[in-house]
């Protein structure tokens, strides 16, 4: 009975997340409704309103609870024009509903999508091509693709080319500064060399910036004009347009293609618009790198601790106390680990590292502030009991016959552990590791103290030496959910992203657990046929 209710609730929860998470990517039709005269939902003085229906619900008017009306929530877009993105309309106010084929959804870099009728496209100095011209569609597609390519090029220049230059310049600046700090009369030749290199870098920088500027100017060369459903015409530069499509005109196949494309974009792009638009790639990547670093830290530590406790330590009150402490550690609220990580890793270890190795950068902290390494170590500390307990159990389950056989062959205790006990315990150890990973990947509270940020400009792993940047702050799926759902300026607009991100995080954790189970079963079959 209880089990049934539990399963039902889990299934229902998964269904809600799955349906909400996936529906985000489905290109819904856009309805255009005509409002009854005097409706409170009018935008300006227009009686038209167009948008995606996001929600239908029963509305109760306060004080008149017997009167039940229904209302619809429309996503109307055009936040730049209307000042809002969503509108509630009483069902009784809807006089007519239509799905005009010409209504287009324009996804943009800023202000969220626009919804309207395309009017014309003007490229450079040419005369604008009106929307009913047969060339219009082809031209629009060609230009959007061209502008998207150029946007990527600008991004590449700014991130991949200018980034390393700034890093090198910063290095030189610090070298010059520490040379000056040493007090002894600085080597004039070295100082000159540094100055020369800085000048060269600044030159390069100026060239690149000019290039980027020129490209940017090109992005404003073409203009797209569209008419809002409420009547007014608006014009925007094509550089700000991500994509244009008319969902009402699309067939099922086209919708599926766009659905897949949206999912791909979600997984591979960076977020825009205070994270409410675009993808979550940096968050996936940050979660991945952090979890990996955590496993690298937690597994050796946990395994060594477990082997010591089980094989070497004298079984007595001390070991029993340690074991109880380890088990209790698993029950400590995670935020406490966050506070510990902040105090110990960030301020103490990081601060000491800074004063020893990066003194020339102070007061700007390098390791003395949250970062992916400290986050990984904090989570490693939090999950180490899982690994210890799993390893201890696995080690204890290795049959006595196997150990005795090894010892009788003249193997030392360590050789026996290394060659017989550990290989047989690997399935259990891996189980512990994956449980730790699953828990670590979903943890948010401690990370908020030790290095997770809303938007990280750089990834913790990239092509600039030393490639793995332990000191960098990072993005994380769990924190992303919190940030979208509760810290976003427009929480209504962010809601779909919350579901999608939640779905992704749950999938990630499920995948990790499934991986664990499969791996363990395979290894177990390999070792358990032994007739010990």
């Amino acid at each position: 009975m209880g089990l049934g209710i539990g399963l039902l609730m889990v299934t229902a929860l998964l269904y809600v997340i799955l349906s909400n998470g996936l529906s985000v990517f489905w290109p819904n039709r856009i309805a255009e409704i005509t409002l009854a005269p005097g409706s409170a939902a009018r935008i300006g003085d227009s009686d038209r309103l167009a948008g995606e229906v996001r929600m239908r619900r029963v509305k109760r008017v306060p004080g008149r609870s017997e009167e039940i009306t229904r209302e619809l929530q429309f996503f109307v877009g055009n936040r730049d024009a209307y000042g809002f993105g969503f509108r509630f309309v009483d069902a009784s106010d809807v006089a007519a509903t239509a799905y005009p084929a010409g209504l287009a959804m324009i996804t943009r870099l800023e202000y969220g999508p626009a919804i309207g009728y395309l009017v014309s496209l003007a490229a450079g100095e040419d005369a604008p091509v009106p929307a009913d011209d047969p060339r219009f569609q082809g031209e629009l597609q060609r230009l959007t693709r061209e502008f998207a390519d150029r946007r990527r090029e600008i991004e590449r220049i700014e991130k991949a080319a200018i980034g390393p230059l700034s890093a090198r310049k910063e290095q030189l600046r610090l070298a010059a500064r520490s040379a000056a700090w040493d007090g002894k009369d600085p080597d004039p030749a070295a100082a000159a060399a540094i100055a020369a290199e800085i000048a060269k870098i600044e030159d390069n920088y100026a060239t690149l910036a000019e290039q980027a500027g020129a490209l940017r100017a090109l992005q404003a060369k073409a203009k797209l004009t569209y008419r809002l459903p409420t009547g007014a015409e608006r014009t925007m530069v094509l550089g700000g347009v991500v994509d244009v499509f008319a969902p009402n005109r699309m067939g099922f196949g086209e919708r599926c293609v766009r659905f897949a494309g949206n999912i791909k974009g979600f997984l591979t792009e960076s977020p825009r618009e205070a994270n409410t638009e675009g993808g979550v790639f940096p968050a996936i990547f940050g979660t991945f790198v952090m979890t990996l670093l955590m496993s690298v830290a937690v597994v050796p530590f946990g395994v060594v601790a477990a082997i010591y406790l089980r094989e070497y330590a004298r079984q007595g009150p001390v070991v029993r106390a340690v074991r109880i402490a380890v088990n209790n550690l698993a029950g400590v609220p995670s935020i406490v680990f966050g506070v510990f990580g902040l105090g110990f890793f960030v301020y103490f270890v990081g601060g000491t590292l800074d004063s020893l190795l990066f003194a020339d950068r102070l007061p700007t902290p390098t390791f003395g502030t949250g970062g992916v390494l400290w986050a990984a170590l904090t989570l490693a500390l939090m999950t180490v009991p899982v690994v210890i307990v799993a390893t201890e159990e696995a080690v204890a389950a290795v049959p006595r016959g196997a150990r005795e056989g090894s010892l009788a062959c003249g193997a030392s205790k360590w050789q026996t552990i290394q060659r017989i006990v550990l290989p047989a315990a690997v399935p259990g150890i891996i189980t512990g590791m994956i449980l730790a990973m699953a828990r670590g990947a979903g943890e948010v509270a401690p990370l908020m103290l030790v290095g997770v940020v809303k938007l990280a400009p750089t990834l913790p792993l990239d092509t600039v030496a030393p490639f793995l940047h332990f000191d960098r702050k990072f993005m994380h799926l769990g924190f992303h959910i919190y940030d979208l759902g509760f810290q976003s300026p427009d929480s209504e607009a962010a809601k779909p992203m919350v579901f999608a991100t939640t779905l992704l995080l749950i999938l990630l954790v499920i995948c990790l657990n499934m991986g664990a189970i499969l791996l363990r079963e395979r290894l177990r079959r390999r070792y358990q046929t032994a007739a010990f």
Partner: protein
Amino acid sequence: MPDAASSPAKPDPILPGTPGPGAIEIRRFNFFYGAKQALFDITLSLLERQVTAFIGPSGCGKSTLLRSINRMNDLVDGIRHGGDITVGGRSIFDPTLEVISLRKRVGMVFQKSNPFPKSIYENVIYSLRVAGQNDRKVLDRVVEESLQAAALWEEVKDRLEESALGLSGGQQQRLCIARAIANSPEILLMDEPCSALDPIATAKIEELIEQLKQTFTIVIVTHNMQQASRVSDFTAFMYLGKLIEVDTTERIFTNPSIQQTEEYITGRFG
């Protein structure tokens, strides 16, 4: 292989002459698990290249005595012992003697076959691997010799790289014997090696013991009276931790001097 004859052990005052490297002397040996005494004052000589069987009812301490010879009981917490055991004239409790080198000289085969979850090849050469021997030529030779000595070579020579866990029970036990003799020990301890095997596999192992005693001193613990009479040269009867009688197998089984022994052998108790 440290040769006991050349090692600086004191000559034994009890035994006449210098004991061979495979001889075992047990002198006034007492053994305790915590407060419980398991062996009482056992004195026994096991001769080189002879098969000695320990018989007696369950719990009489024969396995404990066997496992004392290669100090396998060290794994158990809270054990104590009194008296002494010498192997090849040297005390196995000598603090300067490393237990690892003792176990290299005293191979052991267990009641349940316990091959490692590795290939047949790696199982046989395990003792050489842990001793740091990695010369493929040496290893190949040892594998062939050991498996031939264990009468397993013909059955497995084409699948040495396969997992040892795919072998039958009897084959696994012979593999364990091959593993125990790969390191060319002087003594082979067998703790009820056939108790989990069918009669055919048992017959094979018994035949094998017959051959192995040309090379090794064999000590075998068995519950099976017929087996003891078939394979052993000497038989020691133990009861409740005490050594009741030891003599040639022929005498023990035909004309024991103590009545208790006779009663046990004829199946009147135990």
